[in-house]
């Protein structure tokens, strides 16, 4: 039994690779990944659909020949024991070089022949070109890649476990391809002049402009640079949400307030609400023709103003949107302060206020800092609210969008702005991990330590109630507005009840040929459901696999691996959006305008959700269960399938639902990636908002909120409330993610 098992895996991956080379269309087919029209449309001889081997025999694309060699060579390793140096070297070299070659040829030969001028200068014009990679290239590359990981395993990496090495390799590869490569593309783009030449001066020129760093607003009426706008807003939102969140957390954990459960229910709101919906509701209430504005004008003669459109409005919207996140984090923090510590303080003659001031609050300090950084990152990355309420107040995320979507179409400027935004969020992310990761003041231990929390001192309690209750009422009014607003004819002017907006959006008419989905929202609605449903299981799978590797395996570079997989949390959606546009609209990975790019963006943006859920639940599984399975002769894959997965059902379910819901509410990355064919609900709604079509926008938003609320409710019923709470706390622990 000594190391013979590897042969059939080598053969298997070799066959996969060869199938890609010999049977399937090498290049991407026009009608999409799931279109199979090519089967009947000239395959296999039409050059658009031909497998690599047919292309080569036709005399085209000669640079593909070496790939045939890479795919045949592993046969040398067949039938030899994996412990032999020769076998290991064959697999490592063939797999490694093969993958490198496929990627290399993809990047060097593009739509117009050679991609780089110097290659043309050296070798002369190529006289041939190639498109984005398709099934064939994907399979060939996959086969070669796993031959490489088999080689690593044979060398003894991770105890020679082929499955684990393969999984690590897979995740490193996809994270590199879909997170690091696009972000690197931003950097490259920022360094390029508009003519495509590299120049540090061009970068500095674009970076050090007054539009980004200007401080005019300090001494004049002109606007400040967008970087300062973003920074000021983020600090204000971080501080505000932390204070409010703390107030809510204290009410829920330290008082006998009867509506505690309702307060806790607030925490679920940001999960199910597309972020800009808050902004929208604020317009309905405080906009120039908003309900409250009109009331104030009629009752007290206060004239309507545009105060909502600018810093104050965006700040208010973000406060409403992100306070629940701080609240959720701080519940855990406040509960982490052991009552027995407070009791100890009291037996030492401290009164309630002194105890709070000298013991409880200092113990919460790291948690407060964490909540602040979360609010900071959320605000920095938020796209929807500044878009809806910003007016002349520009922030980085919206500027990026206008740079790339607006008339200017300036990739370089978008890239530079994205870099600045990325710099801020990464800095906060880094601070959170470096500085807070080490400090834990949690004083509740596993031992049942009893004790009753010290009640809040009277005046302080009054203050807290005075803040939280009106805020909760306002939140309730906002949501009521959203749900109600969809049923009135024209908000602010004509409040007659109507179903008009719902019919506009979701109308179904019975025509000559049966039912017609005549509502304007159906297209984006179905796309959203489909894309979310496809990406949810992928997100859960890749997230949980990553969690398994992090919790259960020891391997070289694990810390870097963890950092890399968690990094996408800190990358704002706008940055991901820009980077995908830059990286994936030319061969070899030509994905823009497809549904795949949406799925991929969701998978990698929501991956940390799955990772966190997986880590939380896997840490509770005794690792001796895995070890028992291994010593009983099960392979690591069998162990996962038969022992780990069945025991993690709640985590899997939670990861599935959350990634589904988050995909439905996401906007910032999506807005760059949608196309006419693949429009998403949030992008569609935002488009309607910009056209001042509030009725339909609100109706559509309410439908989304209700659907997601039902999804979360179902999950809660299936998994149980406690688990859900923990899960979402775990999810947000590291950095709530901007939608």
């Amino acid at each position, binding site marked *: 039994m000594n190391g013979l098992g590897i042969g059939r895996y080598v053969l298997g991956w070799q066959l996969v690779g060869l199938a890609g080379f010999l049977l399937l269309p090498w290049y991407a087919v026009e009608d999409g990944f799931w279109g199979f029209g090519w089967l009947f449309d000239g395959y296999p001889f039409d050059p658009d659909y031909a497998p690599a081997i047919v292309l080569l025999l036709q005399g085209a694309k000669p640079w593909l020949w070496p790939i045939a060699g890479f795919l045949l060579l592993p046969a040398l390793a067949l039938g030899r024991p994996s412990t032999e140096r020769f076998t290991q070297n064959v697999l490592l070299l063939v797999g490694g070089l093969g993958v490198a070659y496929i990627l290399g040829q993809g990047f060097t030969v593009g739509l117009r022949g050679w991609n780089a001028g110097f290659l043309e200068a050296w070798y002369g014009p190529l006289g041939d070109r190639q498109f984005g990679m398709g099934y064939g290239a994907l399979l060939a590359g996959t086969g070669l890649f796993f031959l490489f990981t088999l080689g690593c395993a044979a060398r003894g990496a991770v105890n*020679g476990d082929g499955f684990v090495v393969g999984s690590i390799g897979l995740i490193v590869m996809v994270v590199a391809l879909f997170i690091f490569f696009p972000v690197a593309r931003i950097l490259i783009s920022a360094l390029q002049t508009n003519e495509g030449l590299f120049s540090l001066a061009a970068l500095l020129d674009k970076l050090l402009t007054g539009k980004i760093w200007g401080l005019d607003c300090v001494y004049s009426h002109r606007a400040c640079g967008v970087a300062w706008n973003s920074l000021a807003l983020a600090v204000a939102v971080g501080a505000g949400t932390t204070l409010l969140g703390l107030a809510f957390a204290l009410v829920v954990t330290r008082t006998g307030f009867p509506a505690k459960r309702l307060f806790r229910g607030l925490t679920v709101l940001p999960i199910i609400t597309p972020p800009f919906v808050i902004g929208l509701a604020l317009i309905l209430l405080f906009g120039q023709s908003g309900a409250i504005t009109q009331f104030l004008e009629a009752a007290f003669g206060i004239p309507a103003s545009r105060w909502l459109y600018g810093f104050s409005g965006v700040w208010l919207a973000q406060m409403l949107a992100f306070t629940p996140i701080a609240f959720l984090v701080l519940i855990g923090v406040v509960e982490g302060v052991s009552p027995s510590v407070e009791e100890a303080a009291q037996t030492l003659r401290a009164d309630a206020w002194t105890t709070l001031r000298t013991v409880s609050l200092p113990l919460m300090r790291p948690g407060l800092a964490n909540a602040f950084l979360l609010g900071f990152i959320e605000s920095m990355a938020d796209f929807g609210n500044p878009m809806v309420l910003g007016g002349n107040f520009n922030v980085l995320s919206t500027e990026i969008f206008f740079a790339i979507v607006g008339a200017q179409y300036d990739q370089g400027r978008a890239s530079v702005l994205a870099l600045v935004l990325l710099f801020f969020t990464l800095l906060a992310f880094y601070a959170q991990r470096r500085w807070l990761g080490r400090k834990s003041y949690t004083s509740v231990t596993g031992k049942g330590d009893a004790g009753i929390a010290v009640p809040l001192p009277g005046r302080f309690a009054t203050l807290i109630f005075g803040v939280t209750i009106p805020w909760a009422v306002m939140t309730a009014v906002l949501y009521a507005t959203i749900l109600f607003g969809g049923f009135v004819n024209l908000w602010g002017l004509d409040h007659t009840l109507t179903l008009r907006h719902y019919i506009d959006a979701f109308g179904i008419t019975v025509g000559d040929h049966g039912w017609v989905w005549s509502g304007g929202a159906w297209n984006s609605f179905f796309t959203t459901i489909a894309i979310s449903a496809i990406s949810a299981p992928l997100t859960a799978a890749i997230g949980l696999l990553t969690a398994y590797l992090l919790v259960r395996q020891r391997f070289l570079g694990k810390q870097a691996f963890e950092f890399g997989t968690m990094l996408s949390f800190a990358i704002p959606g706008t940055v991901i959006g820009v980077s995908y546009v830059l990286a994936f609209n030319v061969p070899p990975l030509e994905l823009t305008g497809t549904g795949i790019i949406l799925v991929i963006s969701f998978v990698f943006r929501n991956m940390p959700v799955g990772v966190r859920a997986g880590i939380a639940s896997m840490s509770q599984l*005794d690792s*001796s269960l895995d*070890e028992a399975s*291994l*010593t*009983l002769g099960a*392979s690591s894959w*069998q162990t996962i399938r038969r022992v780990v997965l069945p025991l993690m059902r709640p985590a899997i379910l939670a990861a599935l639902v959350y990634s589904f819901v988050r995909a439905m509410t996401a906007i910032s990355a999506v807005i760059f990636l949608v196309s006419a064919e693949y429009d998403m609900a949030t992008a569609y709604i935002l488009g309607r908002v910009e056209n001042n079509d509030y009725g339909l926008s609100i109706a559509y938003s309410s439908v989304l909120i209700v659907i997601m609320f039902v999804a979360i409710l179902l999950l809660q019923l299936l998994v149980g409330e406690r688990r859900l709470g923990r899960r979402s706390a775990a999810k947000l622990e590291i950095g709530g993610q901007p939608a």
Partner: protein
Amino acid sequence: MTVSFGGRASSVRFEGVTKAFGEVVAVNAISFVVEAGSLATLLGPSGCGKTTTLRLVAGLELATAGRILIGDDDVTGLPATRRDVSMVFQSYALFPHMTVIENVAYGFVVSGTPKAEAHAKAELGLELVGLKGYGPRLPSELSGGQQQRVAVARALVLEPQVLLFDEPLSNLDAKLRRRVREEIRDIQQSLGLTVVYVTHDQEEALAVSDKVIVMRNAEIAQEGKPRELYEQPADRFVADFIGDANMVSADILSVDGTHARVSIGGVEVQVPSRGLPVGPVQTAIRPESVLLDTQGGEGLAGTVLKTAYLGKHMEYTVDSPVGELFVVDERVHAPLAPGTGVTIRFGDRIALVVG
């Protein structure tokens, strides 16, 4: 069929095996042999490397250096899955989502045995540990002792070359411990299994083992039969760890073949010489070998400092010219009060310490 469970028992051989986790060396170049069909215990304080050693046998850790052989096969590079070794875990590690019979049959099922056959074999295993008929239950429906037996059955039915136990008794209450450890020893002997057993309880180790390997700081302090360790400890550490011992400086007056005359503070005793020359020496005096007499006579003069009544014996701390001595005395009817003056003599449970 039941009798064949131990048919494939093999020896275990470590040759200079080292395991390092980064900078930390958990096991440092150790070598030992466990004969086929015998029970060896790895004994030592926590953090001494005994569990790591066991996991090295299992393949749950792979050695940084050295060779590990099971039978005649070099398994050094093989991970747990590919080794013919089963393990009973401290926490039992029963799969909570599977029934008892599914747990026991797991090893067969994952290796592709048809389910019916796997369950039939598992049933035999359950019978062997006295849990016939418990198959359809879930592990959570069993008592701690029963769960433990399921874990043993699950490991046993695969007829491993080596069976490993990681502190199998630590989750049982004191009374059950004695019974279960006897059962384990019975099964091991009647089936002729090779067993490697980890414990930190020296009494448990002495009771069940053919060989005890005492570990300290990632190295083997001493290995041998239980009696050898108790009566001829290699050094202070082993003397102290296996049973209690008073470490007292003494002088070897003369050596006569295998015996030596030793003076302990002037009191002469005759003990096995262990090849030591005339001169100063450390002795390990077992507490039951310190004899207290209130009637006077020859011996060291001492004073009782503390006393404790433990039911079946008395424990005293006695001040003497050779230092404070810890004494166990079975005469519970006539306890000595603190402050009593006593004459101290020594019995024959005294070992000269070589190292």
